[in-house]
């Protein structure tokens, strides 16, 4: 089942001589439960791609359909609510709310929707993340790896159609990086969660289903487990 379709996505920054074509007619689709990675050099356009898909940035042209709905045709408020319910974000710098504890941070998207969280679901996620003992802790009291696990919990709580992860291990050591990737893989397998992850770490793509590469704004699909192709 196709969960996302990107068609001819274009994005240009600057004007005249300073003009940079960050994305050049990028098109691809993602299936439900697919764990895909986008790799590329720094400045290649992979973050721009993620930002456009997450409706954080406006592309100059093209179409983004998530679960059949055209993201770019929505108004600001509608798009925000759609993002809150259907797209989970995991950032390199975690971006947790410092005034909320672990549990509150995880249920934050539900609270924004004025929904009462299902405690069993929250407990389940905390257990998967290994944060039961830390549920009342504030982000400032957690290690980097724990903070990123909270961010993953936050991305999972609404059971979104799509999770976008921007260099999720960029600020973590090797052990924590491995744990985060294991969690994402588990989420993909256990909850049939579609995940699109950006990384420039070749070691992380061994666990993913599909690898795409962005170079000079052009996306090329490197196919299924691309270990051998990349090497």
């Amino acid at each position, binding site marked *: 089942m196709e969960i996302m379709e990107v068609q001819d996505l274009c994005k240009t920054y600057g004007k005249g001589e300073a003009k940079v074509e960050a994305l050049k007619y990028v098109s691809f689709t993602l299936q439900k439960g697919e764990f895909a990675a986008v790799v590329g050099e720094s400045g290649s356009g992979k*973050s721009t791609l*993620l*930002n456009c898909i*997450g409706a*954080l*940035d406006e592309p100059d042209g093209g179409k983004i359909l998530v679960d059949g709905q055209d993201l770019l045709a929505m108004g*600001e*408020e509608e798009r*925000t*609510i759609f*993002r*809150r*319910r259907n*797209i989970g*974000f995991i*950032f*390199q*710098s975690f*971006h947790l*709310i*410092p*005034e*909320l*504890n672990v549990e*509150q941070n995880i249920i*934050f*998207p539900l*609270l*924004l929707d*004025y929904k009462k969280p299902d405690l069993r679901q929250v407990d389940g996620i905390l257990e998967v993340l290994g944060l039961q003992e830390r549920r*009342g802790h*504030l*982000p*400032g009291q957690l290690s*980097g790896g724990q903070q990123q696990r909270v961010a993953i919990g*936050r991305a999972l709580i609404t059971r979104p159609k799509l999770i976008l992860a*921007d260099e999720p291990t960029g*600020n973590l050591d090797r052990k924590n990086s491995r744990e985060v990737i294991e969690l994402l893989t588990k989420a993909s397998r256990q909850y049939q969660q579609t995940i699109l992850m950006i990384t420039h770490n070749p070691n992380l793509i061994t666990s993913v289903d599909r690898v795409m590469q962005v170079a000079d704004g052009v996306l090329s699909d490197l196919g299924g487990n691309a270990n051998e192709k990349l090497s």
Partner: protein
Amino acid sequence: MKNYLELIPVSAKIHRRQTRMTRWCIVISVFLISVIFGMADMFLQSQKNLAIMIDGAWHVAFRELDAEQMAFLSARPEVKTVTRYAAANYKLNMDYEVGGVQTVLCGFDETFFEIYPAAGLLEGSFPKGTEEALVSEGMRNRLGLGIGDEVEMTTPGGSLSFRISGFVEDTSMMLKTDAFGLFVNTDTYLSCFREATLREDFVCYVEFLPHCRIQKAIRDICGQLHIPEDKVSENARLMGTLMQSSDHYILMLYLIAFLLAVLVAVSGMMMILGSMNSNVAQRTEFFGMMRCLGATGKQVRRYVRMEAAFWCLKAIPPGLFASVLTVWGLCRMLKVITPTWFGEMPGFGVSMPGVFFGAVIGFLTVFFASRTPTRKAAEVSPLTAVSGNADTVFAAKRAANTGRMHVETALGLHHAAGSRKNLILLTSSFAFSIILFLGFGIGVDFMKHAIKTLRPYTPDVAMISHDNACSIPDSLYAELKGMEQKGNVGIRRVYGRSFAYDLPVHMQGESKTAMLVSYEAYQFGWAESSLTQGDMESAENGEGILLVEKQGFVSEPGSEIELETDRGIQRVRVSGVLRDAPFDGGEDVGTIICSEDLFRELTGETGYTILDIQLRDRSDETVEKLRSMAGDAYSFSDSRASNRETRAVYFSFALFVYGFLAVVALIAVFHIINSVGMSVSARMRQYGAMRAIGISIRQLQSMIAAETFAYLAGGMAEGLLVGLPLHYYLYRQAVTQRWGDAWSLPVAECLIIAAVMTAAAAAAMLGPVHRIRRMSVVETIGM
């Protein structure tokens, strides 16, 4: 770049928005401090001018000095001018008359004109000879006199003749009482009028040199010349404005002014402190990066301090310049509106105290305020910068309570209350607005008590019956009324009153004495605000009377009073009760007011005792026309000069009192807008992350509103908690102690400042919300 400190202007350029906010904050703080001290300075200057114009430039007056003492006084180095002065018949009860008009007699030295600039010599010269005299302008006009003419004065001891050497302006007292003035030199006065003058009316006025310690000089003089305390009086108004008064009450007012000045200074310091704290906190990453690249804590401290100096250079001069322009504007306003009284005010003068305090407080505050951020900046660990966890500088100590309210409201309140230090700093800065407003609000209470204002019924001129009888004919009133209706001779309003004095009245079984007064439509209209019981209409229609409340004269509307007039005993019904009236019959004498028709019915009198006239055109020509209509049959009272004095005093005072309040309200507005703006700016990155997660703009708006509300509510509570006792204390010192009025809750002031603060808080959210609306999430969170 030769030195890392050269990064400062580069950084200012890159962080243009933050730098601009901090710079604006310093500019406005310096402006407010400087303008408030500048206004205080100009206020003192204007009041000094006014005091000199009304009471004269003398500092101290000694009574009953002998020639030896006078000589000693004149020889003292700190004395600038000494002048002798004596007066008689100023109560117009001693039968000294010129042309049948009561005449005030004065004798003084030529230096008197230096001490009393308002006593202007219109024409001629000082009367040096024993038979020479200056006469008042009114005498010249009414008797058609010229210089060199002889004027004959009738005195209880015979008549005296003087040759006119010149003319002086009428004083407000002469105009009001329709009297003449005759002025001779002191020696002539002593030879002609010594016997007619009371001992205490021989006065020696002394003006000291500028910058002299007057109180010490007075003590020395009194000690050396053995002058008892009761023979010394100070020019209280002038001494007060020179900050040289010894009066306990004035000293208390100085203390209040000092207290308010300290509050203003602290308020300015808090504004700058908050702004700089926020500015440095937002650049934690930058300072961490500097540490990472090898800068020592000392170097970072130096950097922040130099940055503060850079801001001082950029922000203090514009703040001072803006304050100078504002003070110029106020002075121009004074000069243009009342040139007679404030013509001497500097049009483009610079208030040195204003500039000094603005610059010094601004400079010191920026340096003082940079100390805490400097320490914070130097303490930033290099790890903070590289880990991307710079936001944790704002890390909370406890979690927000999201269980009982919407998450955005809970977060907003938590942003405000999460850090006790931040909460105290911000609510205190909000509270300061209330404290300052209530503190300066005392100025209005003081003004209402200390400064006489013109009432709606105050006339410009009046025609008064000589014998207090109803002898002004109805026909004259009708003629003037006709002129009013046609708009002739610049008359705005004419309103007459008839008086019947010492009427025996019987009320509530007791016999008393009362004064019956007639009112017409205007006066009934003005009395409306004093009506405490009953209705005005039936009194105006002649169906009843109005009783002015007084001890022994308390009655309910509907009750009856018996009046004994020439027409016998008559019963009248009380239609209403008035709190007060513009006149009082004296102790134990009540005041009863009725319509003109009822007055005629009760007394049989058809004329008036007083005809009051308010003028549209207050020129001398208009007044002369009216005076000629009155002829000699009635006294003609000209209150224009005294009204002008009253207006000038009130206007100059009100301009500054309300000016201070306006500046304080501006401080409140700026404080609030700045605090909210800074708080939002500091969390912009967090808001960006929340937007990415899915918070809507409307929800962010609610979050900011909740945070602002928390500061506002906390600030108001804190402000009232401190401001009300302060108001109580200041009111007791400035008002109760002097006039005895009890303190009451300043509801109006509280409501006004609460409304200003709420409006400012609402306005303060507009900017940040607009910024959030335009915010690029990607750029804000640095993805």
